[in-house]
């Protein structure tokens, strides 16, 4: 079993010397995405923090709402076009994220971050890329899609597999045309269609039944419900894609973001600092252990 995990991006964080002390950011835009999901655009109040803060797609912030607490939310910004603005797509299902749903333009939230590993785009240049995501698993990959578009010639065939419960749960629908016109193959599937739905109905991993992949030259980036990722990995491995070329974003309960509070452990890893992005090669003997 290889345990090589990804290096942390060289980054510049909010970087408070005080324990768990956030930097303030103002909500500058709110975009409703779907039922119970919205995107917040945040801007740091302090120019100095705004200047310093850098991240890479795949990383996350801890978003603090006073009186409620913190939630780990991945960054979905396009790093080039939105300097100084943090884009967070949030599903409002927990204590903190439901409070986030009630926030208005101009309200302030605390931010700590960025934390964790990033999608290793440099290491997969020259390869075909299959991005396989489901539900709220798309936002952590949105930044990657824009990075690929910007460097489109450096990648082979790029396919985005995206699954949602219903057509109205699909996120960022206005951006699909931009993605497709940049030569990204999109395969969207829903669990249940509606009257207008003419696309696929089914689950994300089924794509593998219908299309061929170049085993030796395909990288998989996957994020979504664990059961979906499990089958994506299964199908990819069955097609002899190397575990080193399958990248998985894991989710666990996170409180500190620094591998200190213990909550996000899975096997030897602290998902918040050793992940959330792992090559599957580092997860063998861990990922498939039930309730571990």
């Amino acid at each position: 079993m290889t345990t090589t995990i990804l290096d942390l991006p060289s980054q510049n964080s909010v970087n408070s010397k005080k324990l768990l002390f956030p930097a303030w950011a103002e909500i500058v835009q709110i975009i409703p995405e779907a039922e119970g999901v919205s995107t917040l655009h945040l801007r740091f109040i302090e120019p100095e923090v705004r200047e310093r803060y850098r991240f890479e797609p795949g990383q996350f912030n801890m978003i603090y709402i006073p009186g409620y607490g913190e939630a780990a939310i991945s960054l979905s910004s396009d790093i080039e076009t939105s300097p100084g603005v943090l884009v967070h797509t949030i599903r409002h299902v927990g204590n903190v994220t439901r409070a986030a749903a009630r926030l208005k333009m101009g309200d302030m939230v605390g931010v700590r971050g960025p934390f964790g590993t990033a999608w290793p785009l440099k290491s997969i240049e020259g390869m075909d890329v299959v991005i396989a995501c489901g539900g709220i698993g798309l936002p952590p990959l949105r930044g990657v899609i824009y990075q690929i578009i910007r460097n489109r010639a450096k990648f082979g065939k790029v396919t985005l597999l995206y699954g949602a419960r219903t057509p109205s749960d699909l996120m960022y629908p206005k951006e699909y045309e931009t993605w497709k016109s940049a030569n990204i193959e999109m395969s969207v599937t829903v669990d249940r269609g509606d009257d207008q739905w003419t696309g696929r109905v089914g689950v994300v991993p089924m794509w593998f039944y219908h299309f061929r992949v170049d085993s030796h030259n395909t990288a998989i980036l996957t994020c979504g419900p664990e059961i979906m990722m499990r089958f994506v990995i299964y199908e990819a491995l069955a097609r002899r894609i190397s575990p080193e070329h399958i990248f998985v974003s894991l989710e666990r309960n996170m409180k500190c973001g620094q591998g200190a509070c213990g909550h996000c452990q899975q096997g030897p890893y602290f998902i918040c600092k050793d992940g959330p992005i792992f090559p599957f090669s580092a997860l063998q003997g861990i990922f498939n252990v039930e309730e571990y």
Partner: protein
Amino acid sequence: MNERTLSIGSTITLPKPELDLLMTDLHQRGYKTVGPVLRDESIVYSDLDEMRELPRGILTEQSPASYRLIQTNKERYFDFIPGSQSWKQFLFPPRETLFTGMKGETWHLEENDEPALHYALIGVRACELAAIHVQDKVFMRDDFTDPKYRSIRENLFILAVNCLHPNATCFCRSMGTGPKHSSDFDLCLTELEDTFLVQIGSDLGRSLLEGKRFDLASAFAQNQANEAMDQAAASIVRTLDTSDLAGLFTTALESNRWSEVAKRCLSCANCTQVCPTCFCWDVTDQMDLLGKSTRRERIWDSCFNPNYSYVVGGNTRPNIRSRYRQWLTHKLGTWSKQFGVQGCVGCGRCISWCPAGIDLTEEVAAIRAEVKE
């Protein structure tokens, strides 16, 4: 008054009442002395300003799910084995305020910057000192340092004590942590009948002895102490086979034993609360009823707490089987991969204070036996 010069490594004998003067000196130097006191039929660590507060003539008897005190008439102060508490509570308090927030036009946060106390720990056992070193690796890593832990840790005075009466739940020998101290203390006591044999471990420790009524330790006193320590070591019968524990658990993640222990485990989290190395914590906001102010607190958490592994859509460890497995495989297996040290020091607290009497040494042996089959 003794004018002979002392140096680090010197061993002296000190009349027992001089310990009081030593504590007075520590107070004058700004230290808060904390140590073992008798409370609620147990030994707890608390404020300790004078020797008369020490538990005198107390022996302890421990077994799975049992901790009993035995009162003797002896003028001895450190014959007991510590109770459920460990020094962890001073370095890593069970509850502490990180910052407070006040809502005006917007929220204003204020860090809790109370200066760290300078603690003098009176009576640290070898396994407990090992536990502090384990937590040092957790809280003072290269890539993450807990500023609160560090400020307390760096100002610690450690008065170590060699264990002379280990109990049936102790297995420090297996973990290589005790019962005898080797280094990293300021002063180390071995209790003899009328005196303390004191080994000097630091300049601070040496300077505290200046002006005390001590004698350089005679060969007789040293022999007495060594004999007592050898006897203590020999009296430890509980063992834990530590060979390749990480490897053992990698192959035993689906062992039947996890389901078996889950039938007995109450998931009460006692083991993690009494463990001197368990470090997991949670953060919570305590908001006032008007929503105008909040206090952000760090509190001890436990992998046995159902909320611990909660994620949206469910719990990643939904049952006792998975929680006990996490605790044991982390403590004895993955911990060393994370921090480069073993997570268990063999103090035996989790055995004595488990209401169901679950004994991790027995669990490990059972898992080993199952894997061998």
